[in-house]
């Protein structure tokens, strides 16, 4: 996020697109609702008429996968009606003309045709955003989980730069990160192209720096594989050993049948985990790991805030902290690492090699933590990025972006669009939230399972009626890749022609159905759009 | 949204204000029952949570969230009703219908309830059937009423009582069939004051009203002109005027006499006052039980509008839902905003932040109805009535043990004795008098002897003029029983916000109940005095004081009666 949660409550305008905060980031949604109580205007663009959409001042029910066209339509209005922030564009950005040329191809009528949002509403939204500033744009995976995810993301920053909503309080582009430490895993360089602190592996200076820091001379300057490619190469045997730390790829990745085939193909699979999962079934070796509360450490939240996590108990049995496991392996591979605690890893290693984190040390993290960038130990941390319109690369770059449809669209055989995501009471594949009842086992019927014990397919009353399906009744949902049996949940949140599911349950998991196609650059899967059909059973 | 609901919502600057009228509408459409569906519908129309709607619906007694019989017989057994023999009516009905109060007959025809004050004190016992009143009931008339209802006939009401107007300012000649019409009103000089006022500068009107020294008739006696001058100057927010027609204080039934028979007087008073304080929107907040009077007001406003009298202000009649506390100005504002009628913490005062956070003036019906006379006759004319600091005509209501209960418009400063004589004299031997509505200290027969009825004299005598609702108690009445009735009223009406009132009234009620039923202890009497002494001044709104004062007075002045109830 360019900005902080603390800026939500006093924001004057929210533009929320592809984010269902109420369920995925509940505490963030409280602040949005509070801003609304204080008079902020809320604009929601989402295919689902979800809780915040219901509270919104303006709701645009966009079609799944039409974001680029919709945003281009907004920018078209801003430019043709001369409503954009000329000063900001002139002083702080580049590429305006190129972007404009593309945007001019999306007059509101055209955008309306693609997005299903009326041209009038597109105009109203653009005018509202131009009139009320600053405005905060937030998105979540509704933007990224498309084959055009990167384009969607760039469209959001185009829009905010055009409005001049950058580099100040309660403005900016704010992707709410899905998982507690997905921001941190990126910051730590658990990415194939960058070292810790976003330093490119292809830059020889960085290679040299890290070789020195780590006392090695064999660092690779070749960008590595991303998850879908790793998985694919398991079947070609180009990747022979696969090490999965914590993730339950067998249920979180699209097209489960295919994913399980890939995992099965691995010559050698190692897992660190705290439970057996659908994924560990394929492992050759499983290391038992310490969980949350069983080790010291830090998480980085969406707002770039480093927070401490603390140990309150020992890990059960012989389970050990993950870093310890990696350290032991490194030792067996001939590398003696000196750090003996999370604090030593952070203070003596990470903060020494990643300049944006150089000022962050454990002794500064006792209270509310620190937000990076924080280049030195006197630095108070950074509440919002790009202050005064200064971007990391110098000037903000506009990009002209063309709309592309999802890879799979509804047709006669699979007439419904399936979109997927998270629900409030469970998390991912329920390995943790499923075990929070009185018995603390997965099939417990108390606790969070009491609030939701099986998956449902959310559908519109119109489609339910057409199919003769009643609320609560079991139906078969199938795609070209698989089929699941789940109960129907008839709800006003879903427009006709669309259905919606989550991936929290092993059996009724949306990923049996999802399309394993990816954004060409980010390799993010198109979880948000595929074609399915529903049959009565 | 259906058209009638849309119309209701459109009357208000903020749609939230329409919660109660919308629910009243839905309840009427559904056999006097507000179902869960209806509440959900109201929530979605208004755009608020279900709990908010439920909270409002269950706050006000007139919403039936449980089904009731076709005819809901509600007998007022509050203090005036009690003095007029309402309990006998209830017992009679229980026997006749074969049900207890609070129950519904098997055939679903009748639900019987004991209710608190209905504002028909001189014409008790009174039975409210759905939204119609039947006054001056006797057991024989009760039988006839039931038979008529059973056979589907429209029974007649007998609202007769003594009406004497010595001043002729507020009460008109109600014996005239057309007394409510604008034609009648204008024939007698009506709307001349408004015409004159509209030519005057607002500040000059306020000056004149100040000069007249008119003190609020709602009970507190605050000078009206002074209240108006507290409004902030040079403020861009709209100003609202609320005419307080909640008339909930037991013993009080004066405002309805003006509204029911002389509605244009109130309307003219509102129009002039609105001009004086630069208000474009005024509300008449009338207690919901007075539904037919609200209809009269609605019709009169239509008439006045058609006659071109109301170009300077839009007047909306807003019906309450059955809550005494909503007579308090800040509770009334909350209620008008579509909320539970919980009084607000002051400051801020309504003059600065009232309805919708805007400057607001709340005045009683009788206060506003005095304004046309002042404009027409000047402060000097007004001051011909009454004594210094206590000017003007005043409507007194006399109920309880007198021979001719009724309504009396006399100058301020009239001796109590004179009013009681006008009311036909005390029936039996006088034991005590409550002169200002139930919330003031009772006077013993001896204390009452020389009382002068005006604000200052009453205070000097250790009581208050309040609303001028006089309840006469003769020696057939047990004071502990009267005290129990009194606390039952306040406990029933407490909004429940603050602890001393909510819990204090409960404990006092329990202890008085124990005493009256021979289960009390001497310590209970002291506990009651301890509680009343500490509750005074401790509550969020004046309601705590409104029961602490009369209970304390009854116990201290008639302590032997309480002690006699304790079994030794």
């Amino acid at each position: 996020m360019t900005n902080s949660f603390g800026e939500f409550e006093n924001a004057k305008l929210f533009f929320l697109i592809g984010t269902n905060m109420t369920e995925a980031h509940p505490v963030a949604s409280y602040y949005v609702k509070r801003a609304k109580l204080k008079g902020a205007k809320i604009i929601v663009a989402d295919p689902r008429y979800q809780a915040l959409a219901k509270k919104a001042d303006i709701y645009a029910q966009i079609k799944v996968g039409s974001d680029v066209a919709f945003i281009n339509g907004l920018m078209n209005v801003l430019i043709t009606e001369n409503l954009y922030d000329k000063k900001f564009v002139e002083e702080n950005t580049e590429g305006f003309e190129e972007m404009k040329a593309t945007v001019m191809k999306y007059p509101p009528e055209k955008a309306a045709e693609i997005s299903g949002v009326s041209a009038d509403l597109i105009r109203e939204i653009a005018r509202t955003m131009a009139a009320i500033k600053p405005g905060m744009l937030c998105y979540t995976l509704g933007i990224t989980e498309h084959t055009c995810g990167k384009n969607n993301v760039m469209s959001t920053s185009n829009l905010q730069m055009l409005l001049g909503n950058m580099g100040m309080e309660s403005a900016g582009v704010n992707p709410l990160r899905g998982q507690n430490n997905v921001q941190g895993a990126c910051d730590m360089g658990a990415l194939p192209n960058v070292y810790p602190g976003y330093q490119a592996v292809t830059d020889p200076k960085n290679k040299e720096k890290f070789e020195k820091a780590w006392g090695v001379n064999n660092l690779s300057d070749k960008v590595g594989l991303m998850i879908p490619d790793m998985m694919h190469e398991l079947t070609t045997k180009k990747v022979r050993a696969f090490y999965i730390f914590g993730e339950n790829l067998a249920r979180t990745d699209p097209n489960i049948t295919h994913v399980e085939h890939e995992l099965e193909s691995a010559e050698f699979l190692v897992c660190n985990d705290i439970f057996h999962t659908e994924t560990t079934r394929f492992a050759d070796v499983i290391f038992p790991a310490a969980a949350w509360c069983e080790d010291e450490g830090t998480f980085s939240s969406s707002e770039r805030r480093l927070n401490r996590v603390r140990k309150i108990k020992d890990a059960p049995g012989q389970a050990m902290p993950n870093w310890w496991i990696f350290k032991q392996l490194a030792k067996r591979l001939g590398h003696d690492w000196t750090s003996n605690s999370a604090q030593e890893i952070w203070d003596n290693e990470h903060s020494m090699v990643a300049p944006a984190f150089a000022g962050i040390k454990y002794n500064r993290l006792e209270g509310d933590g620190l937000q990076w960038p924080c280049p030195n130990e006197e630095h108070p941390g950074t509440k919002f990025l790009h202050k005064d319109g200064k971007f990391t690369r110098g000037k903000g770059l506009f990009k002209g972006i063309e709309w592309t449809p999802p890879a799979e669209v509804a047709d006669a055989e699979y007439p419904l669009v399936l979109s997927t995501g998270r629900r409030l009471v469970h998390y991912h594949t329920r390995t943790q939230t499923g075990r929070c009842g009185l018995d603390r086992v997965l099939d417990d019927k108390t606790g969070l399972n009491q609030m939701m014990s099986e998956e449902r397919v959310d559908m519109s009353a119109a489609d339910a009626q057409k199919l003769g399906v009643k609320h609560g009744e079991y139906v078969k949902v199938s795609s070209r890749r698989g089929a699941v049996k789940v109960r129907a949940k008839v709800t006003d949140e879903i427009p006709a022609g669309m259905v919606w599911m989550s991936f929290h349950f092993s059996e009724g998991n949306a990923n049996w159905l999802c399309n394993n196609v990816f954004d060409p650059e980010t390799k993010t899967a198109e979880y948000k759009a595929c074609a399915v059909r529903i049959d009565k059973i | 949204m259906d058209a009638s609901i849309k119309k209701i919502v459109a009357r208000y600057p903020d749609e939230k204000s329409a919660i109660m009228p919308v629910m009243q509408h839905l309840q009427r459409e559904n056999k006097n029952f507000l179902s869960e569906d209806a509440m959900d519908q109201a929530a979605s129309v208004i755009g608020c949570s279900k709990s908010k709607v439920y909270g409002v619906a269950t706050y006000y007694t007139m919403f039936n969230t449980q089904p009731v019989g076709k005819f809901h017989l509600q007998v007022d057994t509050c203090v005036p009703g009690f003095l007029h023999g309402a309990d006998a009516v209830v017992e009679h009905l229980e026997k006749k219908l074969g049900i207890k109060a609070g129950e519904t007959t098997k055939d679903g025809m009748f639900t019987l309830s004991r209710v608190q004050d209905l504002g028909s004190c001189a014409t008790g016992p009174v039975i409210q059937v759905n939204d119609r009143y039947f006054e001056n009931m006797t057991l024989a008339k009760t039988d006839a009423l039931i038979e008529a209802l059973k056979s589907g006939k429209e029974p007649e009401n007998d609202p007769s009582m003594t009406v004497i107007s010595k001043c002729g300012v507020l009460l008109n000649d109600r014996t005239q069939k057309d007394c409510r019409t604008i034609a009648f009103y204008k024939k007698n000089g009506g709307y001349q004051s408004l015409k004159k006022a509209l030519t005057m500068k607002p500040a000059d009107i306020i000056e004149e009203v100040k000069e007249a020294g008119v003190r609020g008739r709602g009970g507190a006696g605050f000078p009206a002109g002074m209240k108006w001058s507290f409004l902030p100057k040079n403020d861009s927010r709209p100003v609202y005027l609320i005419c307080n027609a909640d008339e909930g204080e037991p013993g009080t039934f004066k405002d309805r006499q003006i509204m029911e028979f002389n509605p244009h007087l109130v309307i003219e008073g509102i129009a002039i006052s609105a001009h004086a304080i630069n208000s474009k929107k005024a509300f008449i907040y009338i207690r919901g039980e007075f539904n037919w009077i609200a209809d009269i007001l609605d019709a009169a406003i239509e008439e006045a509008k058609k006659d071109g009298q109301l170009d300077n202000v839009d007047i909306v009649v807003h019906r309450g839902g059955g809550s005494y506390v909503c007579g308090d100005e800040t509770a009334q504002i909350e209620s008008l905003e579509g909320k539970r009628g919980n009084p607000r913490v002051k400051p801020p005062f309504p003059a600065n932040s009232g309805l919708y956070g805007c400057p607001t003036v709340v005045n009683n019906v009788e206060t506003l109805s005095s304004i046309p006379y002042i404009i027409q006759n000047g402060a000097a004319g007004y001051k011909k009535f009454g004594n210094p600091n206590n000017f003007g005509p005043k409507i007194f209501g006399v109920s309880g043990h007198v021979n001719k209960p009724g309504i009396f418009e006399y100058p301020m400063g009239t001796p109590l004795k004179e009013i009681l004589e006008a009311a036909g004299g005390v029936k039996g031997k006088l034991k005590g008098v409550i002169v200002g509505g139930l919330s003031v200290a009772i006077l013993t027969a001896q204390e009452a002897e020389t009382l002068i009825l005006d604000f200052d004299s009453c205070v000097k005598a250790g009581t208050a003029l309040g609303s001028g609702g006089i309840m006469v108690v003769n020696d057939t009445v047990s004071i502990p029983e009267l005290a129990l009735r009194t606390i039952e009223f306040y406990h029933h009406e407490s909004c429940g916000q603050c602890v001393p009132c909510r819990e204090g009234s409960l404990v006092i009620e329990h202890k008085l109940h124990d005493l009256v039923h021979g289960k009390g202890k001497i310590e209970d009497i002291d506990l009651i005095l301890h509680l009343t002494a500490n509750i005074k001044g401790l509550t969020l709104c004046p309601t705590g004081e409104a029961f602490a004062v009369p209970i304390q007075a009854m116990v201290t002045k008639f302590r032997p009666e309480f002690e006699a109830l304790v079994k030794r």
Partner: protein
Amino acid sequence: MSKTIIINGKECVFDGNKTVLQIARENGFYIPSLCYHEKLGPASKCRVCVVEVDGIRNLQTSCSTAATDGMKITTDSPRVLEAQRMVVNLLLANGNHNCMICEKNGDCELQDAAYHLGIELPAFVVEEHEDKDDSGAFIIRDGNKCIQCGRCIEACNRLVVNEVLDFGFRGGHTQVVCDGNKPMGDSSCVQCGECVQVCPVGALIEKKAVGKARSWEIQKVRTTCPYCGVGCQQELHLKGDQIVRVKGVEGAKPNDGHLCVKGRYGYDFIYSKERLTTPLIKKNGKFEEATWDEALDLVADKFKQIIKESGPDAIAGVSCARSTNEDSFYMQKLFRAAIGTNNIDHCART
């Protein structure tokens, strides 16, 4: 500019706009207060926080009285204490405050008030009991302990804006209702627990904490929620190594005490008997327990073999977006420095 008020003869300096209660607290004076909550502001309902203000006849509620320069306050006069005692007695009279078996015992603001005012037993008793509502997955509502302070309602409507709670009924019958008076478990309540967090008494309690610990056995540890990317700060209430309950850290960034249902109630998995407790090696399609050395040697040997045969890029790894930074740091270091490949990723975009 600093201003001064005098409380019980002591000069108390303050800046800005503050209430008498706030200044009293800052200066170490205890004034019982039951409806006021810092996050919610004054409600002026309980009337227990009254004090004497020089020059004003009636007692004033300190929670809602703005302090003005030179104001003289008395918090401990017989008159004040008598009023306060009466209020607390009234609350104790009507309700089932059996502290001995109450989860809030020792952490209850009503109990504190009674204790400070020297009330041993309620001076008078009027009993009217309601049923408990334990239909919610995590929250038990006990109307018999509710003092109608309204904090839960304000919190639900103004802080988390879930708009579930309100007062229903009136006067002595006033009670907190969910939606149209539904059992909590059937209502639109999302079990965020904000109402529990602000409740001053034992009227809202955590189901999972019942019988687990007395308040004085509790140790508190601050940590970060393991679920979504908001990064809410939690206060773990521990007895030994067992989490008894989780609260949000008041005043902390970003959540100021708020949590969601997962953050507040999704903690038990760490104690699950289904946890993995020993390294496992698959032999003939079955997992067998192994020692660390066996398992680590096996993996290291296999890696070495593959590096030798196919180069480091034949090994790939996925790090965890749920675990700590330090774990991810060491995993990528393992891949880059020890194995020699950049084949390291995690579900960065999901």
